[in-house]
């Protein structure tokens, strides 16, 4: 039995996509795959919102896209991170860590108080 999957927190899908594309050009299906593998199936990536998110990021100039052949010889749309996207990834990652730290702190303090 697979562990129950949790929904992705609001607004984090974009961050994850940026992170995945930072490793090199990749097509949409591979992104979905990689997200699911890396999160060990814990995170449910809504495929329905993956493509709109990709198009949105491309439109904002954070991703660029090219049509290339895959290993199997089919044409696929490969997304890669732009310079602007990289900067965005860095600031969002830093923001995320700050947020996590803050939330961890609050949760730890609440724990201590209850004890």
């Amino acid at each position, binding site marked *: 039995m697979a562990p129950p999957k949790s929904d992705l927190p609001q607004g984090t899908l974009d961050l994850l996509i940026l992170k995945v594309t930072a490793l090199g050009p990749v097509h949409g*299906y591979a992104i979905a795959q990689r997200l699911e593998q890396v999160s060990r199936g814990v995170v449910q990536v809504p*495929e*329905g919102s993956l*493509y709109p*998110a990709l*198009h*949105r990021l491309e439109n904002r100039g954070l991703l660029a896209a090219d049509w290339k052949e895959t290993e199997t010889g*089919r*044409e696929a*749309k490969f997304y890669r991170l732009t310079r602007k996207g990289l900067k965005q990834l860095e600031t969002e990652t830093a923001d995320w860590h700050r947020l996590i730290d803050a939330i961890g702190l609050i949760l730890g303090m609440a724990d201590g108080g209850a004890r």
Partner: protein
Amino acid sequence: MEAQLEKELSFHLDQHTSQLIGRGIPPDEARRQARLALGGPEQVKEKCRDARGTRWLEDLMQDTRYALRTFRRKPGFTVVALLILSLGIGATTVMFAVINSVLLRPLSYPEPDRLVTLRGFTESFGELWGCSNLDFGDVKRESQTLALAAWTYGGGTISEPGEPEYVNGRQISAELFSTLGISPLQGRAFRLDEDRPGAATVAIISYGLWQRDFGGQPSTIGRSLVYDGKTYTVVGIAPAGFQLDGGADVFTPLEQRQNTDPRMQNRAARFLRVMARLRPGFGLAEARAELGLIARHLAEEYPKSNAGLSLIPYPLQKELVGDVGSTLWLLLCAVGLVLLIACVNIASLLLARAVSRERELAMRVALGAGRSRLARQCLTESAILGLGGGVLGVVLAFVSIHPFVAFWPGSLPRAEEVHLDWRVLVFAVGASLLSGLFFGLAPALRVPMRGVEQTLRSGARSIAGSSRHLHSAFVISEIALAVVLLVSAGMLGHTLLALSSLDPGFNLHNVMAAHFALSPGTRENPEEIRAAWQDVLDRARRVPGVESVALADIIPMRVGENSLPYWTSANQPPPNQEPIALASCATPDYLKVMGIPLHQGRFFHEHDRIGSEPVVVIDDNLAQHAFGGKDAVGKRIWIPAMGAGPVLVVGIVGHVRHWGLASDDQSRVRDQMYYPLAQVPAPLLHFFSSIMSIAVRTTIPPLNVVEPLRQQLRGAAGDQALYEVHTMEQLVSASLARQRFLLLLFGIFAGLALLLACIGIYGVLAYLTGQRVPEIGVRMTLGATARDVMRLVLGQSLVMIFVGVGVGILAALAAGRILNRLVEGMRPADVSTFTITIPVLIIAALFASFVPARRASRVDPVSALRQQ
């Protein structure tokens, strides 16, 4: 874009499917799971499009394609709509272009807003259009806030080079070009030392004259020109299109007039036009204050001429444009109404189509189209229609603007500047889009929202009540707008009729009048001048077809006047407060030529000459004002401008509507008097010899004597020319030109409005009855006759017509008030105007409803029921 999206998603599905197959899931099941994971492909695509933000653009293109397809499918509707719109927008654009060029665009001089004109103002004369030369000199010297320049009218015969030709001229002060901020095209402006009596005679010529008489050669500067009997050296060529109240060909220095024009030294002769530029650092308010001060000083120093005279600066643009603004705005309102009717018309046609497309729209809503999306599609369609009409309208405006300006009665100020510029184009595009949105709004709002299933389920054609009300509202407003225009046109027509039937005060048939200047060669001494005039009269009398001849300085209803103060005793009232009379100088036969009735006493005869007792003939008005209308003959009046002594009133004649049939009643100067040319004192004769006109009563059509008369009067040197020839009929009719022009345009607009309203009624009724065919079928099966059905349909239209007429009459009364204020001599809206115009409209409207009514009465009940 779409294809790429499709490809990207199918790649995803294929990858997922093949991976699932690899895990041992059968292909069909794998495909199903992959699809499920991705979600509905259409929804995903929609979201992707949304995410790209190009959604609206794609929609717009799709809507545009759809709209164009619809238009192609209904070419009749499209052509009619475009035609109506292009007429409406074209006419509105033309009016706006004229307003833009004449009223809104600044003058084409540098810093035009710092240019002003100076006007005098006195209690009894009201606003004067000019300044006296002496006042001008004083103000120019004293003013710190203004740099002044002046000019006045002139003209003369150019006898060399080329054929002798009379041209208009202007005498200008040396500063004029620099004040306006322009420089001559070639050569130079006048130097200060040339603007002085006795200086070398120099002239600046117009671009037109340069081309005409000098072949446009650059060597023209320095060549000579014989103008008005004197030889001038050409020192400059004015820029093309340069005008001072109309075009002129020769510009000469103002002060060189000193020797020949006694008005130059007369402080009461306010014949100069003064233009000025505000000096840096000063505003209009400061100039006004300073002029007030200077005027007060002048009044103290020269009470006889300047008491009560104030000097007021006006922005030059306002002065140049005059009162043409009200006519222009009036016409823009009128064409705006026509455009509004056109829009309402198209709106009702579009609405009819929208209602018949109701099921199609409901179907699309059921299939998931958003309501705002459908509304946007409707608006796109109408905006395209609007823009199409706008493009055609601009083309129409481009073609018709110059004929329109040429057609303007009299001269339209700044007419040469009228053209279409970017502001006009912005206006046209704005007007078309606004029209498009306006007539697209009703159909767009009708996009179904609720009761979609009901609409779809009802197989029968049904019509919602709200749309019927909307249709009626359209028809009613169209009729109301048409009533406004019809009644306005009716009022103008009524006014024109009433004004035309007024007695001008003279017999306008078979009279010709023309300016006529004596040959400069015969203008040296007073005796020669008198002899030359006598010679002109004798020669003119010999021309076949001429019945009587007279000379006069003022011709009724023609531009040009001379108003003089008078008083009935030697004790003068304070200056600038005396009554004023229009004073004409004439020869004895003038009364006979003009056919002005003599009421009492006599007109002039051969014995009224210099040395005999000065005499004057007055009109009924003056007799009434000065002497209570009783026994005026034999009384004396004092006219300071004619000397210190009294003049004897020898006769009373009828009043002449000098200021035009329409304007005379409201004019400030209503009294008139005549004095004999033979008694004009010698020093003034030289001046008079250049301003007189010859008037001729004929036994044949008056224009037929012009050529023989011209030949007779050429003079020994061949340089006496007739110019500005008019018949009195032409002058009388020109005095109503503004009213006639307005009537013509309003008539055309009203006709268009009527036509559009009828098309609207026809369209709406045809549609409404078409919707009611099944109902009519039922009625007929139940025993209704064709007559009953017709009555039903006509009744429906009658209600709309009468409500429209009612609303229209109220609006027309308001519009009539505006017309009354803006058009002189306007008669108020009266019952007869309404009783003539309203039935025309009702009959036309009923005629338009008759066709659909008859069609309804011929409905075959059986087939109508089968439609159900």
